[in-house]
């Protein structure tokens, strides 16, 4: 099976349209950044603050949560309903975000504590005097079971109750997503007898919510992480620039870096447009797309380098066109498959990976396009400029000569 054969497109002749498309994409994304007072949508990793991910046993009334938060003096908190990975139609999961509270010395987790207290007051934490089964740790559960000894093992209990506690909390966390609404749900757990169930229901209540995830980042750390992420990206770009300059010519390196910079800017704009937050994981995605776009650009440049040796007389722009056409089949295939991969990730990877996958979905498209739409025209333009100066950059470096030898075989 073959999709592309003998393609003959004058890519460089269309360079001005590509630039126009890029400018439009940039404008669309960054107009939304501008509306946001020129600030990117940083997540709490970079901004500092508190994020509490709560799961309820049934869809919670958001108004009630909002009111509880406002009454407690936290009116600026954000409440977001998110869908669950295993059950996209469920509306039981809520993420509550708090801005960093002042810069003072107060306890970092004061905000989290407040949220938990508010939820307890608004939704009740089960019956008074009983601990909540939905938030107990295996160790505490094991201690309780050992004390009650529902299996009547006496001193022979050994490790039995530890294992049982592990199995019970395991069933709660993996089969019921962390929240058990009825003790009978635990009937089928290996080793559970009616006695165990009795002992559980007499000693524990079943709370209506469980805290699934807490992120608290101090303001100092936020700023530090932001700086570190920017530095890591710049160093990575610098490293790639040097490597490409060494393998090709410096103008190729510069063109490739400008192209990936363009990709990152467009992706950031789209992040703002679609209200995704920039977290540490998203930075990993941005860096991935940098690598991916670079990969794509190098494949084309590599072909240009080879063709320069074979076609000594033709105009530079024609050589670049031919190189893009020759690699087009590979470009479409790889990009298509990668796009498919990240699309699966976007659809199936769950809430935690959603923003990451979004960056990749946008990045794969933009990264592929920028290789022939931005990077190649820059090299052609530079060549034209140098040509008018009398010394066009045609050949590659020493490495290029070795490759030419291989190509002629």
């Amino acid at each position, binding site marked *: 099976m073959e999709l592309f054969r003998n393609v003959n497109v004058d890519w460089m002749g269309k360079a001005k349209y590509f630039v126009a498309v890029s400018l439009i994409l940039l404008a669309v994304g960054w107009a939304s950044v501008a509306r946001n007072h020129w600030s990117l949508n940083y997540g709490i990793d970079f901004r500092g603050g508190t994020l509490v991910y709560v799961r309820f046993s049934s869809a919670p009334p958001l108004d009630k949560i909002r009111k509880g938060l406002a009454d407690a003096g936290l009116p600026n908190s954000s409440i977001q309903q998110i869908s669950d990975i*295993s059950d996209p139609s469920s509306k039981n999961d809520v993420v509550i975000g708090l801005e960093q509270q002042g810069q003072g010395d107060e306890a970092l987790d004061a905000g989290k504590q407040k949220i938990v207290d508010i939820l307890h007051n608004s939704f009740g934490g089960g019956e008074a005097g009983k601990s909540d089964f939905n938030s107990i740790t*295996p160790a505490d559960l094991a201690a309780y079971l050992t004390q009650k000894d529902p299996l009547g093992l006496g001193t022979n209990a050994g490790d039995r109750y530890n294992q049982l506690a592990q199995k019970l909390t395991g069933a709660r966390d993996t089969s019921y997503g962390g929240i058990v609404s009825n003790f009978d749900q635990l009937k089928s757990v290996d080793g559970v007898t009616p006695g165990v169930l009795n002992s559980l229901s007499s000693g524990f209540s079943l709370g209506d919510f*469980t805290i699934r*995830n807490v992120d608290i980042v101090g303001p100092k750390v936020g700023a530090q992480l932001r700086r*570190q992420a920017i530095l890591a990206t710049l160093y990575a770009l610098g490293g790639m620039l040097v490597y490409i300059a060494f393998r090709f010519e410096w103008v190729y390196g510069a063109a490739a870096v400008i192209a990936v910079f363009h990709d990152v800017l467009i992706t950031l704009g789209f992040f703002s447009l679609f209200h995704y937050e920039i977290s540490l994981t998203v*930075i*990993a995605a941005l*860096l991935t797309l940098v690598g991916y776009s670079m*990969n794509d650009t190098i494949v084309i440049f590599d072909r240009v380098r080879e063709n320069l040796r074979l076609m000594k007389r033709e105009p530079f722009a024609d050589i670049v066109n031919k190189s893009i056409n020759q690699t087009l089949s590979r470009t479409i295939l790889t990009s298509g498959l990668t796009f498919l991969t990240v699309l699966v*990730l976007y659809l199936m990877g769950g809430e935690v990976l959603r923003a990451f996958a979004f960056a990749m979905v946008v990045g794969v498209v933009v990264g592929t396009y920028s290789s022939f739409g931005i990077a190649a025209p820059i090299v052609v333009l530079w060549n034209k400029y140098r040509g008018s100066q009398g010394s066009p950059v045609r050949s590659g470096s020493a490495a290029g000569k070795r490759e030419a030898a291989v190509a002629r075989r």
Partner: protein
Amino acid sequence: MSSQLTWKFVLILIVILVCLFGIFGMNQNGPTFPTSGAVLKQNLADRIRLGLDLRGGSHLVLQVQVEEAIGQRCDQAIDQLHKQIRDKKIITGEIRRVDDSHILVRDVDPNTSGAFRDLVNNQFTDWSLSPAAGEQNGYLLTMKPSVMADFGKDAMDQSIEVITRRINALGLTEPTIAFTGRGADEILVELPGEGDPTRAKSVIQAGGQLQYNLLADDQTYPSQIAALAAHGGVLPPGSMIVPGSSEAAVPSDQQQVYYILDRAPIITGQDMRGATPEPSTSYPGQYDVKFTLSTAAAARFGPFTESNIGHRMAIVLDSKVHTAPTIQGRIDDSGVITGNFSQQSAQDLSLVLRAGALPASIKYLEERTVGPSLGADSIRAGVRASLGSIIVVMIFLVIYYRLSGVNAVVALILNLLILVAFMAYVGAVLTLPGIAGVILTIGMGVDSNVLVFERIREELRAGKAPAAAVEVGFDRAFLTIIDTHVTTIVSAVFLFLFGTGPVRGFAITLVIGLIANVFTSIYVSRAIFDFHLSRMDRQEQLSI
């Protein structure tokens, strides 16, 4: 098959076996041959270490207030300086602490300034001496930077030691306590499986600095001003004002009060041999902490309490008076800390006292807790997405490249096998971004194969024989693959060096995956092609 090709396959087989052994053939007890599915699963679980985001747990970053520890050294130096100056009959004005690492000595009598300089140069070698700017006959003592760095490092090492002891005493499983590598004063604490770190946090943060001080005047004051006023506005020499709370059976009845204490402690936490919680005798339902003293401290404490019967003694914990009971009789080698403890808080305080005091206080900078149920969900979603995309990609490759596509599928599977095995051997931790790195590795792996295959097709189209087309295809694509992979590895290395947590997890899997990919998509794939070519008829077409 030529002997060279045979050797290639032998090498590939060895790699596969080593990888399989690394993933499935071992568990924490050493090599164990998997005889059943359960053992296989257990081995896999033991070998692949999951990050906190996948297994659930707490991640805490805390900052040691190192300057506090340095400030304490400064205070000690000032005390010594006072003493030495008195002994050597040097005449000076005020001696003042400017900040954590500077001491200002004013108005040194010109007749004794030589003796003063000798004293500092000979006995205060941690400090450098210079004339104070804007002062006549004034001197500035500055702590030497190397000494300051040493103190700072000592404080950090000691903090890690103390925190480790405390966490181990809490009985949490497989904790990690290490430097973050981000700031020199930051410590990372990871507690796998811990869904609510509140208790661990308070135990870590407890200062644990305990001392017994005699009350200077046996009185309790409602405010600092009242305390000062009782002494005519001047503190008695060698004393200090310390806040505390009044004693009451119910905690809510307690009020803030102030005490004037002798500066020099009678005993400190270092004099302690052990501490245990026990039910309170004076307040039913509450708990006390009982401690025993070392022999040397007991020898001091016995006579001291005997000669101070009827006086009040304050139990000061982290610069706050806990209680100030009246000494009823001689106390030799044990004591009791009373004061509204619940069973758990009494237990925690005993634990902290046993583990020793922190050299400086601690602030939390970051706290991330992933509940076990979310971790389980993430794993499922991550693995499902990875498997889903791998299968889609493989089906496509076989449809598009036919037999050669099967070749690519074999190379991809081997690529993943090497990646997972390598992570198992070096003990790398698999995180959620790590799974994303795996998915990207698949993408790059596919790209390498596509590059080679497209090139071979091109050469075939140009009229080359299958064997020649394969050779040129691999040779040409090799250079491209090296360039693209090295570029990405260069950037991933920078990510690893300068990135944090999730970014690093991603970089690790990417680098390992890419190196494995170079091996599988060039070496292995080529070997399979060569094998196929060696058995092919001259006229036969390549299935690509």
